[in-house]
């Protein structure tokens, strides 16, 4: 896998990646592949190792073990060669608030060594694309959250990278801007870029082509969003209605073996294995003012179920 990337080789290839900070293991044996033209979602809670993985892919951190290749180049050995073809957007808004939109773009173009003529056309293109054109002369610090993210994205796109690594780009952004941002990401994938996007939002998982669920430094599930949802090994009952607190209290008062209850806002998901258990729960909740329906599991259900299960395959204390 060390040779130059062929047409079918993944743009990002991570094999058995490991990284510890002193005693604490951040990534423990992660495998990952992102193909050109696809959006791969790296999904997991804070502390799952998403940021560490991304920093290693960008060559900012050295891995303890494992291999990371971007477009056929080793990120640890040739970080600069990798960076010339990769765009990375860290989690925090990291542009200069006292510089204008145009000045920020210009700075990154210069750092990437974009020739002046190309810079001008590229900048016009990005302004059009991100709809930041009318704000060229505005200081970055005075932009709204969504516009800041679009500017940060534009800065990472100024050198026409082939691979884009975005660390939680929509965290703290309003829903309308989030949708707009994902529209832009989809457009970029359509142009053939490989995108690795991390997010703590399960609803964004459905917007990806592939997802990797990450927990405690490992991937616990991978595939298309549908495949991951279908990987849910058990059955699900959804409980809704005005009597939700009453239902929750009854379920808590008499726990059933093998039955788990998760609360998602205005509904409960009751995880079980067979019809007998479902009938048992239905009897328990009769008259509590709730409705019960069997539902198809989503990614979030899979995630919660797999997170709670002992990690398969590898030895854990």
């Amino acid at each position, binding site marked *: 896998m060390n040779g130059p990337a062929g047409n079918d080789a993944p743009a990002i290839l991570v094999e058995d990646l490991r990284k510890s900070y002193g005693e604490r293991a951040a990534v423990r044996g992660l495998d990952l592949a992102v193909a050109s033209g696809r959006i791969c979602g790296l999904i997991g809670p804070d502390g799952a190792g998403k940021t560490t993985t991304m920093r290693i892919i960008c060559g*900012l951190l050295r891995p303890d073990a494992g291999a990371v290749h971007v477009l056929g180049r080793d990120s640890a050995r040739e970080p*600069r060669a990798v960076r010339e073809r990769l765009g990375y957007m860290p989690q925090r*808004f990291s542009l200069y608030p006292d510089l204008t939109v145009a000045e920020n773009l210009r*700075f990154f173009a*210069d*750092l990437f*060594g974009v020739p002046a003529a190309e810079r001008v056309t590229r900048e016009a293109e990005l302004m059009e694309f991100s709809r930041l054109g009318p704000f060229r002369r505005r200081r970055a610090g005075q932009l709204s959250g969504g516009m800041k993210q679009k500017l940060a994205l534009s800065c990472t796109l100024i050198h026409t990278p082939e691979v884009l690594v975005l660390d939680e780009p929509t965290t703290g952004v309003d829903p309308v801007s989030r949708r707009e941002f994902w529209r832009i990401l989809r457009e970029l994938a359509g142009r053939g870029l490989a995108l690795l996007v991390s997010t703590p939002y399960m609803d964004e998982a459905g917007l990806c082509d592939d997802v990797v669920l990450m927990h405690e430094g490992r991937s616990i599930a991978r595939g298309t969003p549908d495949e991951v949802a279908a990987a849910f090994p058990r059955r699900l009952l959804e409980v809704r209605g005005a009597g939700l607190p009453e239902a929750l209290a009854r379920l808590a008062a008499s726990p059933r073996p093998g039955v788990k209850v998760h609360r998602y806002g205005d509904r409960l998901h009751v995880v079980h294995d067979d019809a007998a258990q479902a009938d048992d729960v239905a009897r328990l909740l009769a008259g509590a003012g709730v409705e019960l329906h069997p539902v198809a599991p989503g990614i979030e259900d899979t995630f919660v179920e797999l997170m709670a299960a002992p990690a398969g395959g590898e030895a854990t204390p």
Partner: protein
Amino acid sequence: MNRILAVVRKEFLHILRDRRSLAVAVLMPLAMVLIYGAVMDMELRDLKVGVLDLDRSDRSRELVRAMTSSGFIVAAEHLPGREEIEPGFRQGRFLAALVVPRGYGGDLARGEARVQVLVDGADASTAATVANYLQAVVATVNRDLLREAGLAAPFGARTRIWFNPELVSARFVVPGLVALVLMMICALLTSIAITREKETGTLEQILTTPVTPAQVIAGKVLPYVALGALVCTMVLLAGKWVFGVPMAGSWWLLAAYCLLFIVIALALGLLISARSPSLRVAMMAALMVTMLPTMILSGFVFPIASMPGPLQVVCRLLPATHFLVVLRGIMLKGQSWFPLQTAALVVMAAVLLTLAVRSFRLRLE
């Protein structure tokens, strides 16, 4: 090279956008030259002295006249009696009192005259100066009397002060301000600029581009070298035009030593920013490590020779101490050979630069 220029360009934009900090960096040193130059005048003029002449003879009037004709002392008032001395001190009407006892003229003829000098010790340094003036006056009168009697004074010292004959403090202060300004801009501002970039996460963002850490640092540091050189020139010119601070030696030599000192200050700034977890810590550290010692322990304001032994050792470890010796030597004496100071400064620059580069590498990984 283009990447360094890109960082330089961006850094200049930061400096120009932050008008307030720029104003402080440029105006504060100038204000300091003007204020220190004017205020730190060590001379006292028109001192008010109360005179209690109990003798009222020609001889006693002669003494009072000798005292007031020096220009430094004006007799504030002739006191009617001893009981007036204390209220005079308390009300601040005079800082010293001269008491000429009854029979002074007669005693003088017999060669055993005495006068009393009382000094307000509340302000110790003024008191010492006043006492010195008054003793000098008495000595002068003594010498004149001896000459009158046809006798030569057995012993006398004539003091001449070289290089700064009028002891103008501006000449002494301006070199110190140069050191202070360079420390402030090159160490304090640089460490703030780098730590800020670390804290806001932009450093991480920049390092994902093909730029190397060394290029980033070079680009960030160069604008501050330029700013430091500019302000430093302004301070020197202000000293020359406003206070007539001389330039006895070579401007080029001066510039060369300033550059050496700038390297030291930058290394300190880098070291501080590499070791500081936050902007606040960096600012405090820069103030404690660079500005305060430069002001207090370098011989800028307080003479090192008058400090206790262990503190003198600390003073010798400060780059500013050696830099000041060189600056004053070049500007006031036209000196051009400083083997000891040069060695000390070069060693300090080498050590600090090595430390700074090493700790920066560690932190960026």
